[in-house]
């Protein structure tokens, strides 16, 4: 009780109240505009929060993070375009509801489910905080190294079908973090004699480039979309009643959100996928999923809104961000010399609880705002894409230039903007780069510190938490390898099935013989022999 009272004492300030209001309303607006998203908004606002108190700055950013998903449901339901990436699953059941003339029901259900997910996760974590405070000190240098490594591996393997290139991009992030003066032996690394690179590549410059400027380029190059909005009539309170009819789906989905949010590198998508699958498998009407099922909508929205509060756990307790948004928030802590980690949980528990209570209040504010203002709010969906691009580019300047008033930072940000634009066009992930940059730095420091006390390799995992983390890493890697083997076997089978020629061995030999005897085969073999000769002559 004392803890909650001292946490409330931290929040009883006019600037925190203003931050809560600005964060919640701003977050909903940003979420409701397809093409902006919380990552862009947080990246732009990050330098502006550096001059604020940590609690005020973090409340604004948390507000945007937590409330953008509420707003993201609006275009997902009304125009079949998710406002934020995590609202993609909302379109599956939300838009069919709109199509059959129930947009009000869908929106009301999405708000109620989101509210339940948000409040459930915050309450879980407030109750769970004393346990976390006891577990956090068990994490020494080697445990934090292993947890960071686990987070990085999970981010990479989560990109199914793109794990290799996601891994390469994560390594690129680690490489970016190594550029500049190395702080222990004071040697230069990959500075190429350029003074501007001596102090390293700033994380915020990279974040702004990869998320904000690249998004501006993307919007400026695309065509404007024609949008037809459905009119909303009637109240929005019926969703709360409908949610009360599905307590099992809502609580299990929120539970998945909390657990997945706490694991670094996993996040909303896995939580949503698991909740949706669970809801579909246990539903009495599984055939309705994807056709406007209320249970599907509840599962998707509850799970994604339960994640933000839980995602703060690895950040606050271990100093390890699990995804790009919490990685950006880490820089707010560093700027104010508040080092998140076990010590924060032990010494400043009231600060941690204050953040959770702020999230709780935020959920209430957002729900009230949405119930009152949805009809006016849906008009933001009409903002033309390319004008949004102009706006994002203008605001990105504030983000980059206000950091150090450096034109070279802006050049680097523009470069990363172009790189991010290419990644977006190819649908390759940018998040592993940011996590590689943040976790790479943590891993370097912690590995160096822990190896000083390790004599044999087994000493590294001789503590219980280290051993558990190491075992999880091994399990994740083995599971991933097995999944790849299964995918490859599937592919092979599909290739054999679609083959038009016979797959019998005798037929294969017959085709080989024909290739040897025909003039074309002879020419091909001669060309190959010639190329091989040229190659061997080189050596």
């Amino acid at each position, binding site marked *: 009780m004392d803890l909650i009272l001292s946490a409330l004492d931290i929040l009883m300030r006019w600037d925190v109240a203003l931050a809560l209001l600005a964060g919640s309303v701003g977050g909903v607006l940003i979420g409701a505009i397809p093409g902006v998203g919380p990552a862009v908004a947080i990246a732009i606002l990050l330098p*502006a929060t550096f*001059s604020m108190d940590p609690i005020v700055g973090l409340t604004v950013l948390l507000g945007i993070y937590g409330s953008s998903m509420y707003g993201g449901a609006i275009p997902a339901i009304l125009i079949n375009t998710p406002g934020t990436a995590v609202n993609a699953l909302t379109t599956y059941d939300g838009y069919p509801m709109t199509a059959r003339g129930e947009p009000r029901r869908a929106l009301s259900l999405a708000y109620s489910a989101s509210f339940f997910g948000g409040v459930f996760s915050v309450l879980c974590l407030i109750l769970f905080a004393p346990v976390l405070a006891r577990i956090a000190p068990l994490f020494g240098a080697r445990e934090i190294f292993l947890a960071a490594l686990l987070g990085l591996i999970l981010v990479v393997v989560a990109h*199914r*079908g*793109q794990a*290799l*290139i996601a*891994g*390469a991009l*994560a*390594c*690129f992030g*680690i*490489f970016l*973090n*190594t550029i500049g003066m*190395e702080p*222990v*032996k004071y*040697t*230069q*690394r*990959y*500075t190429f004699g350029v003074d501007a690179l001596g102090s390293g590549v700033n994380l915020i410059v990279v974040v702004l480039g990869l998320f904000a400027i690249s998004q501006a*380029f993307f919007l*400026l*190059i695309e065509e404007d979309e024609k949008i037809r909005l459905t009119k909303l009539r009637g109240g929005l309170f019926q969703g709360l009643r409908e949610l009360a009819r599905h307590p099992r789906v809502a609580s299990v989905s929120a539970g998945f959100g909390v657990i997945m949010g706490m694991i670094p590198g996993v996040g909303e998508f896995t939580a949503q996928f698991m909740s949706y699958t669970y809801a579909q498998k246990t539903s009495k009407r599984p055939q309705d999923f994807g056709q406007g099922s209320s249970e599907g909508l509840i599962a998707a929205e509850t799970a994604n809104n339960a994640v933000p509060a839980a995602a703060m756990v690895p950040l606050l307790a271990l100093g390890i961000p699990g995804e790009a948004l919490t990685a950006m928030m880490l820089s707010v802590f560093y700027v104010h010399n508040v080092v998140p980690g076990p010590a924060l949980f032990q010494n400043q528990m009231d600060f941690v609880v204050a953040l959770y209570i702020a999230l709780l209040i935020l959920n209430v504010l957002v729900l009230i705002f949405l119930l009152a203002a949805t009809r006016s709010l849906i008009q933001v969906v009409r903002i*033309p894409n*390319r*004008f949004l*691009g*102009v*706006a994002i*580019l*203008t605001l*990105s*300047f*504030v983000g980059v*230039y*206000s950091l150090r*008033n450096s034109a070279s930072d802006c*050049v680097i940000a*523009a470069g990363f*903007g*172009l790189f991010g*634009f*290419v990644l977006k*066009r*190819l*649908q390759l992930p940018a998040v592993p780069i940011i996590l590689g940059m943040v976790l*790479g730095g943590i*891993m*370097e420091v912690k*590995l*160096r510190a822990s*190896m*000083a006390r390790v004599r044999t390799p087994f000493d590294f995992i001789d503590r219980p938490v280290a051993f558990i983390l190491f075992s999880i890493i091994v399990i994740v890697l083995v599971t991933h390898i097995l999944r790849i083997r299964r995918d490859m076997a599937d*592919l092979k089978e*599909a*290739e054999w099935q679609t083959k038009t020629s016979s797959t019998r061995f005798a037929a294969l030999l017959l085709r080989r013989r024909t290739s040897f005897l025909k003039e074309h085969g002879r020419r091909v073999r001669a060309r190959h022999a010639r190329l091989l000769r040229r190659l061997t002559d080189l050596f």
Partner: protein
Amino acid sequence: MTSERERRFVGPHRGQLLFVLTFLTLSGVLLALIGQQTTWVKQTALFAQPRFWPAVAVGGMVGLSALHLWRLPFRRVGRNDLREVLRWAQALEYAVWFMAYVLLVPLIGYLPVTLVFVSALAWRMGYRSRRMMAICVIFALATVVLFKALLEVRIPGAFLYEFLPDAWRSFAILYL
């Protein structure tokens, strides 16, 4: 005809091969330069070497992108790939707009350059109605007031502001 491997590929096909080839080449160059660009300190453990993490990172970039290239179902650069590169190059124009904005702010001032930049870029994008121009002006004004006057982000006063009358100069440097 599209093969099964191509059909199962995650993401668009165009441009993938060129991207991976470029990424791999640049990673290879970085790996080749590791001896020049990092230092090996004598009598220091492997994990504390300044070269250790760059080696892990660049090694990972080369190894994983090479594996990705090997698993890629496309082996030839086609017309679609070249068209995609042209699309990438289109973004350069906006990078130039952005850099012009960055370079002009310290000379002319945040407010005047933002007003011109937003309106000019919106004009270039095809928004030429009076209503859109008015929205651009309001947006530019709101941005400057919010960030420079209210949130007090660090954007220095412009060179041109030095020529303003005394009463205006300090106001312009602080708030415009």
